[in-house]
């Protein structure tokens, strides 16, 4: 009936922790810094330090490290695929050969580097969504992009779209399920046949879904207008974002850590 784990990709877990309390802008910017740091580093040993840092962060945020790693599960295939590509396609000193396939020393290094980079990217980005509610994230992004509104970037609209899209993901899940069942009951066969045949078989599921979505857009627009919505001008927030000292400290700390790690890496 109702699926409860819709937002499985880094589902928000409410908790009382110092990380949860940080301003979302601080968290977003910190993650960007961390990702820059991860991609700048080359030595495999460096990744151990990122791992340690992750563990520290997870204890600060009262989220078990096991849960954080689970967030990477959907993407593990992509990570392995990327690692695989680097493993087999990098030229250099050959270590092992079998027919057309060969693994080089450089390949092993590249594969582990890129694989680990992706892995940590997903984990740290997942951290962001685990500790920040969708509304906070959208508020944070809106505030960060607000200066660009002057040159025409629709920061508020983008944030509102994000909020509404996230709100409707579970609803759309259920509706797709319902339509699927209705068409299965009418004899639709979605399991057999070639790729083209199966794609065509999904039309009776996709068309009704589109109809629902368009009707919803119209109804929702009216409902929003009825509650005096008129874009971002003059809009206040129930929980406005407030940049606190803790945020400044956190950002400085992250900046310092990233800088130190990168410098050590460059020196080594």
């Amino acid at each position: 009936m109702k699926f409860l784990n819709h937002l499985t990709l880094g589902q928000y877990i409410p908790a009382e922790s110092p990380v949860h309390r940080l301003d979302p802008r601080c968290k977003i910017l910190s993650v960007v810094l961390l990702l820059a740091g991860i991609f700048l580093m080359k030595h495999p040993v460096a990744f151990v330090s990122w791992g340690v840092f992750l563990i520290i962060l997870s204890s600060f945020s009262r989220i078990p490290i096991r849960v954080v790693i689970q967030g990477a599960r959907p993407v593990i295939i992509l990570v392995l695929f990327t690692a695989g590509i680097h493993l087999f396609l990098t030229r250099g000193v050959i270590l092992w050969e079998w027919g057309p396939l060969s693994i080089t020393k450089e390949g092993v290094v590249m594969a582990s580097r890129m694989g680990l980079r992706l892995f940590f990217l997903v984990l740290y980005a997942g951290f962001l969504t685990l500790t920040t509610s969708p509304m906070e994230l959208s508020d944070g992004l809106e505030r960060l992009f607000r200066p660009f509104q002057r040159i025409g970037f629709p920061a508020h609209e983008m944030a509102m779209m994000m909020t509404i899209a996230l709100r409707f993901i579970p609803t759309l899940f259920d509706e797709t399920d319902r339509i699927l069942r209705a068409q299965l009951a009418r004899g639709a066969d979605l399991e057999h046949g070639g790729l083209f045949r199966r794609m065509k078989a999904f039309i009776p599921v996709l068309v009704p879904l589109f109809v629902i979505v368009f009707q919803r857009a119209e109804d929702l627009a009216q409902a929003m207008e009825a509650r005096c919505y008129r874009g971002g001008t003059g809009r206040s927030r129930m929980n406005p974002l407030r940049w606190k000292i803790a945020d400044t400290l956190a950002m400085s700390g992250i900046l310092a850590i990233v800088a130190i790690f990168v410098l050590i890496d460059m020196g080594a």
Partner: protein
Amino acid sequence: MSIRVDSLCHVYHPGTPLETKALSGVDLTVEAGTWVAVVGQTGSGKSTLAQHLNALLVPTSGSVVVDGVPTTAETSALRSVRRKVGLVFQYPEHQLFAESVSEEMAFGPRNWKFTEEEIHETTRKTMSLLGLPEELLSRSPFHLSGGQKRRLCIASVLASRPDYLVLDEPTAGMDAPGRKELLGLLKGLVEEKIGVVHITHDLELALALADQVIVLEKGKTVFCGSPDSLMDELLERPIRGLCLPPILELVSGLRDYGYPVPYTLDAEMLALRLEREIRS
């Protein structure tokens, strides 16, 4: 020729933290050419039961046998079950997708490998059964009125010539005249020897139309029998999970006070009986 449900149990998400027992030991027999009403509140399991009847769901334990074919059989047998038992979901307008009414009607039969001639024949017959004029055939299903859309959806399921038709709240959202018309048309199906299973939370509707009523509460059967015996049962004891229509609540209140009036949906009869009691 019947659907037999025996000790049906269904558990969603077994073995996970979301495990829920939707049905526990439900028994039911639906004979061809009869009208069975399945009554219950939200969460009583009626929608789950509906999906078992045409093998969209398979039993966790117990059995569902449609004209001798159990719904745990292999795929080929299952597809024949699904053709025999048509299922119309609530607010079926959400399943419309075709460019024309005739395409929408042909979808089911084509899936069941009817010939083009058979499709043409069954489309014509079913549309007339549900009071849809032939000139609608070339129109887009999205341009029909609300009532026509609803009837089209039911017709498109009937076009596959099922022996049984399960309808989940077919009159949801309809006004009084629309509801009356649709139910009248559906009653005609029973005369065509189609077994109708009517899923509803409206006891009043169920009692007015059904040959047999089954009441579900939290996945369990709390009553199964004829509408008359349901009324008799209410004389003895209240039935759990049954949201009584206001007139039956009134009867309940009057009886508690001491007036021996019968359980009836007929306002006129109730008034007459009460008048007699008061004057005597």
